[in-house]
């Protein structure tokens, strides 16, 4: 167990004019830890995710990331080139809509291989072998490797997006409603797959979801957001089984029992 966090976030705020995106969010994330950020639409969870993944610059606050050389770097002081390099090597971003994270008009194999080629792999045979391996890990048949994701079902597209993100062995993955918009049975399969991959690869992940069941299954820790602020945080099962904040109690009591 590492005693040094992977990501340190301190007093992060993002304002859109006078409107609050997220305000004063602080936490540490350790390697191998999955943090769920829950809340309803407009609670600021996606703004927070976009700030953390440097897709959006915060209005104030800091986030430092421990690079592979062990040095902490201040994310918002890095050059764009460094941030983008980080984004396609050491990080992953799984979008709710796979079309936002995939190239829909190139083959599944090339979607998986792109990051490898971006970091300088120039051997077609090896790139393809790696793509085959990753497709099988996300349960996509090898004979679909040359098909475009346009021809894939929603669940397959999402699994392909995950493979595309994980192929460079990232240490931190951001996920925005990774199971949103999928059928329940497809969701279950995807969740199980994600859970296995996260455990096997020792990934740290920040998962934004409004689905408390997803949070319970994937995450060890949880932050509940409302109106841009964190209203409760802690161990996932503690927050769900013994919710303390009024809003968390409302969320938990709103879950439909099957």
């Amino acid at each position, binding site marked *: 167990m590492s005693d040094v966090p992977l990501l340190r976030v301190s007093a992060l705020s993002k304002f859109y004019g006078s409107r609050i995106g997220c305000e004063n969010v602080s936490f540490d994330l*350790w390697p191998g*830890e999955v943090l769920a950020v829950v809340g309803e639409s407009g609670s600021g969870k996606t703004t927070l995710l976009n700030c953390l993944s440097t897709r959006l610059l915060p209005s104030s606050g800091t986030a430092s990331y421990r690079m592979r050389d062990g040095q902490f770097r201040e994310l918002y002081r890095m050059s764009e080139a460094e941030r983008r390099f980080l984004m396609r090597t050491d990080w992953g971003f799984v979008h709710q809509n796979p079309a936002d994270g995939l190239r829909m008009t190139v083959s599944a194999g090339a979607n998986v291989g792109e990051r490898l080629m971006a970091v300088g792999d120039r051997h077609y045979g090896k790139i393809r072998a790696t793509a085959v391996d990753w497709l099988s890990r996300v349960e996509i048949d090898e004979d679909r490797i040359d098909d475009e994701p346009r021809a894939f079902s929603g669940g397959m597209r999402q699994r392909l997006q995950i493979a595309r993100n994980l192929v460079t062995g990232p240490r931190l993955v951001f996920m925005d409603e990774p199971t949103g918009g999928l059928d329940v049975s497809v969701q279950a*399969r995807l969740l*199980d797959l994600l859970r296995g991959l996260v455990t096997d690869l020792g990934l740290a992940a920040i998962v934004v979801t409004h689905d408390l069941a997803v949070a319970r299954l994937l995450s*060890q*820790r949880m932050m509940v957001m409302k109106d841009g602020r964190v209203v409760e945080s802690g161990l996932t099962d503690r927050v769900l089984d*013994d919710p303390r904040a009024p809003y968390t*109690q409302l969320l938990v*009591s709103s879950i439909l029992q099957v």
Partner: protein
Amino acid sequence: MATPLVVSDVAKSFTMHLRDGIRLPVVAGVSFSIRSGECAVLGGPSGAGKSSILKMLYGNYAVDAGQIIVQHEDGLIDLATASPRMVLAVRRLTIGYVSQFLRTVPRVSALDVVAEPLVERGEDPDVARNKARALLAQLNLPEKLWMLPPATFSGGEQQRVNIARGFITEHPILLLDEPTASLDASNRDVVIALIAAKKAAGVALLGIFHDHDVREAVADRVIDVTAFAAGKIAA
């Protein structure tokens, strides 16, 4: 004799914000300790707060006041104030928990559900699975079920998977929340034997057993939870 778990003056209440913020006191002044190699049983009627105490000891419920001191690795940890990360470490290495209900994960086989806590502690997956097989066999779970996800199992079958999962590790502290509730007599005996083995191995056990026979068989002493009724102190 080592005392790996000391609970002192712990209090717990629920504030129901959706019901005008009414406060439901559960327990207060909870104080006891468990020694290695003994099995203590929480006693008292339903609603006295037995389960809540167990959940606080596992970090599953927050604690209003007091301390829960646990011998974790080479130091002492107060679980009542420990960080989530520390609670996870304590769960992985120090405190095991057998709940009443199995929280199943889609598509994971019963065997892997049982083996998982060992693998999490760094055990070789094959070794862990062998140990899981032995436990499932001991608990008379039909072998044809081992490779199936337990979601569709009967209550008794799920309970046995849950017990195997809880007993497979060598946590020095083990919490048992009615592990025998839906078992038949012969399987109850297996659980009694498992608990005896844990005691012999020096594990500190704390449990809730509604089944009188099981309680008689395993309990070294009974901690009367009614003594901690929150109303008494509040009154």
